[in-house]
């Protein structure tokens, strides 16, 4: 009873708070999706009572129902549970990829942009090489080199995105380095390092944030694609990409593909939307 009387009011304040923050509704929805995904990855057991690794073999390949929201797979496991439990690995691996790309790329871009001269020339060629090899090809080659599992696929995905971050960072650093406030800090007695760390880095990083969010979504896709080609974790792992990849062998039971694909698409779409919004509001 109290819940009924309270909820409309709290919803109104929530909405007005959102409008005060000028968050468009689609962005709010995107945040909600990402929040659910984060919650799934932190505490999957709160969202499902089934076991992701073992099922009832007799209940294999059931279609979606109230008992099994996404149906069951070829070993009788609840697909929704597998999607929920697979989230942590999918999200973590995408994060690993983003961190690798952002840190390595950011560092390369920072040094190239700030130091200039031959450092810039050498790093620029390195980045050119990384750019010249199609990203996905690069990821495939790297993952072969370091072995097939989801973490390695994440590392490979990260490596393949280093060049993008390096380029964006470099151009931002060069832009910032020429900013008047950098010279102003120099006149205030700031050393090179002080300027690099306190002025150039924070300013140049601002455009890296939306890129990182975007890259997060893309990494999920790339890692899923690698899993699709068979470069993922062994069973009973249930990363989204693996689930789709397993599902494609059972196309007669299409939910095995569509359910994890839908979750993947919703997550990536949300990340894209947030990235776009961050870019606009920056």
């Amino acid at each position: 009873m109290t819940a009924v009387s309270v909820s409309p009011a709290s919803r109104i304040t929530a909405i007005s708070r959102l409008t005060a923050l000028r968050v468009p509704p689609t962005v709010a929805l995107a945040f909600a999706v990402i929040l659910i995904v984060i919650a799934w990855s932190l505490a999957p057991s709160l969202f499902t009572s089934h076991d992701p690794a073992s099922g009832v073999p007799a209940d294999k390949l059931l279609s979606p129902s109230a008992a099994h929201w996404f149906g069951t797979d070829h070993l009788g496991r609840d697909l929704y549970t597998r999607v929920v439990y697979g989230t942590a690995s999918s999200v973590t691996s995408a994060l690993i990829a983003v961190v690798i790309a952002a840190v390595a790329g950011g560092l390369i871009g920072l040094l190239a942009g700030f130091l200039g001269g031959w450092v810039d020339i050498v790093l620029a060629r390195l980045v050119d090489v990384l750019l010249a090899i199609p990203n996905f090809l690069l990821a495939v080659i790297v993952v072969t080199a370091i072995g097939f599992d989801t973490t390695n696929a994440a590392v490979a995905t990260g490596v393949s995105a280093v060049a993008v971050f390096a380029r964006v960072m470099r151009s931002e650093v060069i832009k910032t380095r020429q900013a008047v406030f950098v010279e102003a800090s120099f006149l205030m007695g700031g050393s090179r390092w002080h300027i690099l760390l306190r002025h150039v880095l924070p300013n140049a990083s601002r455009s890296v944030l939306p890129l990182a969010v975007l890259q997060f979504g893309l990494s999920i896709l790339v890692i899923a694609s690698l899993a699709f080609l068979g470069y993922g974790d062994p069973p009973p792992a249930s990363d989204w990409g693996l689930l789709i990849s397993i599902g494609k062998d059972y196309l007669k039971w299409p939910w095995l593909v569509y359910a994890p694909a839908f979750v993947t698409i919703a997550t990536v779409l949300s990340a894209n939307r947030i990235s776009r919004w961050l870019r606009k509001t920056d």
Partner: protein
Amino acid sequence: MAPQDRLTATFTRADRVAPTPLRSIPQLRVDGLSVSYGPHEVVTNVSFELGRGESLALIGESGSGKSTIARAVLRLLPSGGHATGRVAFDGQEVLGISERGFRPLRGRAIGFVPQDPANSLNPVRTIGAQAQEAAALLDEPDKAIRKQLILETFAQVGLDTPLRVYDSYPHQLSGGMLQRVLIGLAILPRPALLVADEPTSALDVTIQKRILDLLTRLQHDLKISLLLITHDLAIAAERADSLVVLKDGVIQEAGRTASVFSSPASAYAKKLRADVPALNPDRYAALRDTGFRSLKTGQAPKIEVSAVTKTFTVDGKALTAVDDLSFSVPAGTTHALVGESGSGKTTTVRLLLGLEGPDTGSISVAGEQITGRSPEALRTVWRHLQLVYQNPFTSLDPTWTIERLVREPLDRFKIGTRKERDERVREALANVGLGEHLLSRKPGALSGGQRQRVAIARSLVLKPDVIVLDEPTSALDVSVQAGIVEVLLSLQATLGLTYVFVSHDLALVRQLAHTVSVMHRGRIVEHGTVADIFDNPQQPYTRSLLASIPSGGNDVAHMRTRAFG
């Protein structure tokens, strides 16, 4: 045949839109206009009238809604903008009609001269191609004749080589030339109303005067009604028949120019008038007196620049930005560097600070040699010598808080204890008239004037002897400028600071400087005390600079003749 005759001979007035206008109907009538961007109303209930062949100026500080009104009238509001009220052109309501219904008026009846010439022409199309669009409004089927008309118009607006202009891309022309092109394109179809949104704010003072003269002449010759938008009261007073003064989207005062100007009724208009340097040359006379005294006592110069030359290589060609430059500044006084754009003012400033090394010559500040020092050695000089940049929007790191920004020099030079530094930060901010509540804000949350004060506070916090100010107010409104000038002068009076003040605004220089160097193409063509230069200019270049100060009508002319000092 004079170009003007040619013009009138080939054109007839475009009266297609309103064939038999009634004399009593004004050309433009704005009634209860309100404009909002999303939820924010930026123009509220604005009404005014502009008669045929007359001129009306909309004035007000930045953000007061001038451009918004112009765009609402032209129906060119950006996405998100929404206008309500009535706008009648020639008695015909135009705000509510369909785009299809309004489009015939565009260009033919209502011309538009935009604010920023550099961005107002498509960069990837030739001027000629874009001019043909304006010419298409003439109902002249023959393309060759249309081109002829365009070239004649270009000549008419003072472009010397119309054919070259016709074939050029925008980036190949200077700002002044582009502005003339834009004016030419606007008047080519002979509109009844010309809306000019700050048509000269992006231009040099000398060019500014030529453009304004051109507009005034066209208005008279072609009987065009002119809606002029400007933030410069002096220009408005000089050029418009009537004035509308805006603040925060609300009309503060309106009426015939002479009456508004000579006896402003609203407090805002009064203050605006008082803040215009050209109208109040002696506003800070008292504050400047200490400086004049030390000038007379012939103190040892704080700054000595002797025979400095700086040459840049651009595109393989040598460009002498500063040529055999010498001047000295006595302690406790303000020395102004004035000159048109590109005359070498900023280069001089950078040489002075050691940010650039001169090719020849020497510079010393407070007895210390600047030239030939390493960056490390320069740091010790910068403790006493600070710079305030032209644009407060770019000179403060947007990711830092105000407190951190102002404390940065103290931290870098390791001055005092933590507590002492906090103390000095507060003191510096108080000196420039900023409260402690701003400490935790970031520059983005401050107005332009506040930011420039922060920049000044940052230089002051080190307690330097000399502050170099490179056009510190050119990005700001007159009223904000007045506040900053006042801060600067009172600091000088109390702390005995020495200023080098760079500006292209001679009226401002006259208000605050003690000595002046006039620069032209890297050279000092004339220098002396303010009185010498302003009352008795020797060089034709100086005279032309002085002549282009907008005077606000005759009113100011006699003020200028009054002696001072």
